[in-house]
C-alpha cells in the first residue's frame, strides 16, 4: 500500500489557561495521542460533541497551531518540523474551509480580493480570468466579483470560502464544520457542491462535524472523538458502531421518517471537565457497560480493521 496523503502519529495538544496573579494555571489535553491516516481521494469524517477537540485536531493537521507532541506527515513530508518558508510553499497544497462564513472573509475585501489573496500570499501572478473561473466553479455569478461579503448570504459566503480554499488547486482540504452555521436547505447545497468538487478535482477531505448523520452520508471512514481522544474508527459509513459512545451518538440522531420515530434514550451523566479527567475511560461515568476496569485503566485504540478504544465493545 502506498503511503497515505496524511499520516498523523501520536498527535497531542495541551492548552494552558488561567495562571493569573493568584490562580495556578490549569492545563487540559485538547487532543490526546491521536493517530490517523487519510488516503488519497478519501473523505474521512471526524465527529464528536462540541469541545471534544475536533477543531483543534483540524488546526493541528494544517499546523495552524503547534502540537505539543506527535507528527503530521503530508505526502511524506513531516509538517511539524518544517521551517517557515517551506511550510508556506507547502500550504498551497492544503487548505481549510472554516465554520463561520461570516467572520472568515475580511469585510473590507471584495470577492476578487478574497480570491486573489492565495496568489498574492504565495507570490504568484493571478492568471487572467481565474477569479471568474473560481466563482463559476462554486456556482456564483461572475458579476459578484466586485461585491463585498456583507452583500452576500451565508451560503454564498461559504461558497466563496470554498473557492478560496481551492484557488491554488490543493490536494487536501480540511472542512471544519462547513455547514454548521447554515440553514438546512443550504447545507445540502454546500455538501453537494463539496462532493461534486471532490469528484472533479480528485480532492482529499478531512471533514469535521458534530452531525453524525451528515458524516455518515458524506464520508468513507469516520473517526469518533470524545474528550480529545479517538474512541472509534468506523471503517465504512455504514459500519455498525462498537463503542457505546458512538452508539449513543447515533441513537441521539433524529430520524426524518415519522413512522420510524422512536424514543430517544438520553446518555446519563455529565461530560467530565477536560481539566480534570478521570483516570480510566473518559466515557466510563456515562457508560451503561462500564466496569471497575473502565474506571481505573484507560483503554487504548485497538489494532483491528474496526478499531475501538473500549474494554467491552458491542
Amino acid at each position, binding site marked *: 500500500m502506498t503511503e497515505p496523503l496524511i499520516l498523523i502519529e501520536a498527535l497531542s495538544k495541551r492548552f494552558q489557561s488561567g495562571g493569573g496573579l493568584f490562580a495556578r494555571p490549569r492545563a487540559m489535553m485538547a487532543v490526546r495521542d491521536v493517530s490517523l491516516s487519510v488516503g488519497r481521494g478519501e473523505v474521512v469524517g471526524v465527529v464528536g460533541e462540541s469541545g471534544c477537540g475536533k477543531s483543534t485536531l483540524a488546526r493541528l493537521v494544517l499546523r495552524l497551531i503547534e502540537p505539543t507532541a506527535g507528527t503530521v506527515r503530508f505526502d511524506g513530508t513531516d509538517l511539524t518540523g518544517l521551517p517557515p518558508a517551506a511550510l508556506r510553499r507547502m500550504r498551497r497544497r492544503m487548505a481549510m474551509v472554516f465554520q463561520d462564513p461570516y467572520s472568515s472573509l475580511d*469585510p473590507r475585501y471584495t470577492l476578487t480580493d478574497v480570491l486573489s489573496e492565495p496568489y498574492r500570499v*504565495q507570490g504568484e501572478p493571478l492568471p487572467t480570468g481565474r477569479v471568474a473561473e473560481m466563482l463559476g466553479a462554486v456556482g456564483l455569478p461572475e458579476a459578484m466579483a466586485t461585491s463585498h461579503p456583507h452583500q452576500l*448570504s451565508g451560503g454564498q459566503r461559504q461558497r466563496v470560502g470554498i473557492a478560496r480554499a481551492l484557488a491554488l488547486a490543493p490536494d487536501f482540504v480540511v472542512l471544519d464544520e462547513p455547514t454548521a452555521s447554515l440553514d438546512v436547505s443550504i447545507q445540502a447545497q454546500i455538501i453537494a457542491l463539496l462532493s461534486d468538487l471532490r469528484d472533479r478535482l480528485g480532492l482529499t477531505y478531512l471533514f469535521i462535524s458534530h452531525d453524525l448523520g451528515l458524516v455518515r452520508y458524506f464520508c468513507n471512514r469516520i473517526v469518533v472523538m470524545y474528550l480529545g481522544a479517538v474512541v472509534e474508527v468506523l471503517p465504512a459509513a455504514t459500519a455498525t458502531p462498537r463503542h457505546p459512545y458512538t452508539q449513543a451518538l447515533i441513537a441521539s440522531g433524529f430520524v426524518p421518517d415519522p413512522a420510524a420515530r422512536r424514543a430517544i434514550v438520553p446518555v446519563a451523566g455529565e461530560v467530565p471537565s477536560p481539566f480534570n479527567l478521570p483516570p480510566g475511560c473518559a466515557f466510563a461515568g456515562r457508560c451503561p457497560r462500564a466496569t471497575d476496569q473502565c474506571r481505573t485503566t484507560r483503554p487504548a485504540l485497538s489494532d483491528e480493521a474496526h478499531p475501538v478504544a473500549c474494554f467491552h465493545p458491542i
Partner: protein
Amino acid sequence: MSAAAPIRALRRPSGGVAGLWLALVALAAVAAPLLTPYAYDVQALREAYQAPSAAHWLGTDEFGRDLLTRLIYGARTSLSVSATAIAISVACGMVLGAAAAWFGGWFDRAVTVVVDLTWSFPEILIALILVAIIGPGTTGTMIAISVAYLAQFTRLTRAQIMTLKGETFIEAARSLGAGNAHILLRHLLPNALAPVLVSAMLATGDAIILEATLGFFGLGAQPPTPSWGGMMSAGSALVFKAPWIIIFPGLTVAITVIAINLYGDALIAALDIRAKLRRAA
C-alpha cells in the same frame, strides 16, 4: 464601502452644513493672503477699537488691526497646529497600539500601564506640563497636544487589533501561507483604520480647544502671529470696551468645533449603516 462614507456623511443635513463650514474655514486658511486686504501684523493705532463696519467687517483690535484678517490667519495657526498634532498622535498611537496588540507579553503590559497612567490625567494638564518643559510657541504646543492625545489612539488601536486578531479571516489568511507583514498590513490595520480615523476627526475638535486654551494662557503661537486663543486672550481684558475682539474668535472656535463634531457624528452614522448591513446579512 468605507471610501464613500465621508461623502455619504455630507449628504446628511447636519453633516452637509458642518462640512460646508469646515470647507470654508479650511479654504480661508489656505487662501488667507488672497482674501484679506489688510496685513495681520501692521499696527494702525488711530484705527484701534473700531466696531464692525463696512471697512472692517468684524471691527479692529487694540492695535487697529483688522479682526477678520487676523481671524483668517489665526485659522492657519490653529487648524495646522491641531491637525498636525493629531496626525502625529494618530501615527504614533497606531504603531504603538498595533505593536502592543501584536507582540503582547511584557511590551504590551508596559504600553498598557503607561497608557492607563496617562489616561488618568486630563489632556490639558499633560499639555501644560509639556509646554512648560519644551517652552511656548507653535512647535511646543504641537508636541504637547500630540502627546496629550497619544494614549487615546494607542488604546483604541490596540483594542481594535486585539478584537480583529481573533477573527477567522486572520486564521484563513494564515492557512493560505500569509506571513505577519501581510496579515498586519492587509488585514489588521485597514480594518482598524476607520474607527481610528473617525476618532481622530473628533479629537481634532478637542485639539482646537486645547490649542486655543494654551494660546489663551499665552503659551501658544507668540505675537504678532495670530491664533484664536491668543486673540481671545487679548480681548479678555477689553470685554466691555471692545467686546467684538473676544466674541468673534470665541464664536469661530465654537462653531468650528461643533462643525467637526457634527460631521464626525454623520461619519459614524454613515459607517454604522455598513455595520448594520453586515449584521443583518
